């Protein structure tokens, strides 16, 4: 609690500073366009009135925080949930493919990690490729997967989920390999003296030891999975989802919409990471973990 309180004041004051800076920049960035409007309308507003106008443009270069907040509030709470302008609806579309891809990615990552730990051939031949694949900008593949799968009639949730799977299994594999190998030699020797079989060693020693690693990498994976789902919505002018909101906003210069979609995406990301963190702590406690 002490650490929390010692962080609270600095964090809130920095966030407040960001908001103030945001207002300043909103005024500065929107000024040229507002000047332009005023000269055309032949009006010369006072300074206060002018600043008020820069902060209430319908399509500002930089929307003010309160404009984003109002837009976000309207689109989240005031619209029917099944309307495609509702952020809840769009967030749900993105969230569903994120979760599906995340589930597949985690399962795939664990299976590959188990294979790598137990089969020496896989360790020597597959592991270098998995590490090398981290250096590749995989998101570039996203539009192709979407379009190619659409060409053979697979559309909707599955292609987006595939991109999420692709992005989320790397962290899980790497984390799980580390976790499954984390038991010390001493513990492995102990299992040996108990005459434990390979599967007993696996289930009773390696798996429990790997759980903290699994949840740490799952936090990274779920964030990557969300990015994958959002980018997966960009090509083919996707119909719904946070990525589609971003793209539509970019096409029609609805900057306020872009920002509120961004806020929605960030909230979803924060919630997902938090849920994984809480699940990790619950599992840890259920398995008898004690706070260090």
């Amino acid at each position, binding site marked *: 609690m002490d650490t929390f309180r*010692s*962080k609270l004041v*600095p*964090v809130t*004051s*920095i*966030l407040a500073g960001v908001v103030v800076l945001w207002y300043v920049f909103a005024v500065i*960035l929107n000024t040229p366009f507002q000047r332009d409007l005023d000269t055309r309308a032949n009006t010369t507003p006072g300074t206060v009135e002018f600043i008020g106008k820069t902060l209430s443009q319908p399509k500002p*270069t*930089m929307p003010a925080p309160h404009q984003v907040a109002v837009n976000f509030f309207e689109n989240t709470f005031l619209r029917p949930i099944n309307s495609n302008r509702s952020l809840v609806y769009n967030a749900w579309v993105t969230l569903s493919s994120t979760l599906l891809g995340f589930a597949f990615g985690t399962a795939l990552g664990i299976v590959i990690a188990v294979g790598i730990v137990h089969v*020496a*051939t896989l*360790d*020597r*031949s*597959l*592991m*270098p*490729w998995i590490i*090398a694949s*981290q*250096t*590749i*900008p*995989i*998101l*570039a*593949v996203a*539009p*192709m997967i979407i*379009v*190619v799968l659409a*060409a*053979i009639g697979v559309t909707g949730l599955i292609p987006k989920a595939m991109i999420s799977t692709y992005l989320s299994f790397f962290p899980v594999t790497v984390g799980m390999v580390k976790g499954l190998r984390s038991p010390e030699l001493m513990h492995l020797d102990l299992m040996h003296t108990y005459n434990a079989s390979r599967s007993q060693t696996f289930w009773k020693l390696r798996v429990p030891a790997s759980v903290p690693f699994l949840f740490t990498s799952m*936090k990274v994976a779920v*964030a990557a999975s*969300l*990015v994958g789902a*959002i*980018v997966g919505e*960009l*090509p083919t002018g996707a119909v719904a989802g*946070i990525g589609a909101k*971003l*793209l539509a*906003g*970019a096409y029609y*210069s609805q*900057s306020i919409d*872009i*920002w509120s*979609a*961004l806020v929605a*995406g*960030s909230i979803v*990301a*924060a919630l997902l*990471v938090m849920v994984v963190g809480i699940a990790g702590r619950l599992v840890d406690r259920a398995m008898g973990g004690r706070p260090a």
Partner: protein
Amino acid sequence: MNWLKPSWQAVLAIVLCLIAVALGAMSKPEAAALADPTASINYPYLGTKGLMLGLAVVAALISMVRMPSVAEAVVLFIGAHLVAWLLISGITGFEGSALAPYFLLLTAAWLLGWRCVAVLSGLRPIAGWLRTALRLVIPAIFGAWILIIWEAVTRGAGIPFILLPPPSAIGVRIASSLPVLGADVRQTIFKAVLFGYVVGSGAGFITAILADRVPFLRRGLLPIGNMVSALPIIGVAPIMVMWFGFDWQSKAAVVIIMTFFPMLVNTVAGLAASGHMERDLMRTYASGYWPTLIKLRLPAAAPFIFNALKINSTLALIGAIVAEFFGTPVVGMGFRISTEVGRMNIDMVWAEIAVAALAGSVFYGVVALVERAVTFWHPSVRGG
């Protein structure tokens, strides 16, 4: 039976070859020729079918004889790859006509290749350079087999070109459109990525030093930085495109934002990495903040900083490419990918992805090499 050393891969490969022989024709033209012996129908594997099957079986049999592992690996390597090469070169001109025995033979060759890798990964050479060579050869064979299977399956089964072009077609495409690819690389990597990477990482580094100097900033920025790393920052791309226009500046801006926070968080963590003992030693030398920073804490933070640089090398490429999906001048890797996908030139997309993968690996490799040179004192480097 002392001279025999069976392996399940080799046995299974032989069984698959026998099934392939029993099934007969390897392709539809061959089946037609068999059905009508009087007509002269040209079909694939006219003379090489027996050779391929024989090679696979002989290689599998020899590999089970007890002999030095190196010899076994060589036999398997030659057998597996010769069969695969004959298979792929034989199907030329008859794409899409393969029948079950074709795939059985491919599987048999792959099993031999697997056995080869298994034998190689069992080797424990003493000489250092041999170990390094082995560390490169094993994944190389694995990667080669991915390409072989990809090529053989796409051509044998006649998978539509639009769905998945064979690697050879992608290679041809890369070779024939080098100028276009070069222009894209220049636009995306040499303009957007490098500029954004340097500025973003530099800004993150300077902010981290500032945060280190002012504890209030550190306590406030670190939780925010940690949280931001989980957010889909890539979403700022459309905003940056609106602000900075379609050219590379908007992409560089996205890259700056994406690379800033990993650098900040890692550098702050790294600056806390030096031990109390060393810091106390510096204090007994009456060393001030800046000498301590430069002589002790920054070197101690180097592994963390390089970790951030490595993470950023990938993030920068992703940021620039995805930002180009939101609008670019008519050049750039992300632009090329999204337009060629629209025109269904999938081989060009794959070519671009291959170039992006190569660029990403080279970028990462350069950072890793610099890291080895700079942090030569670190246990992870010294230990080899």
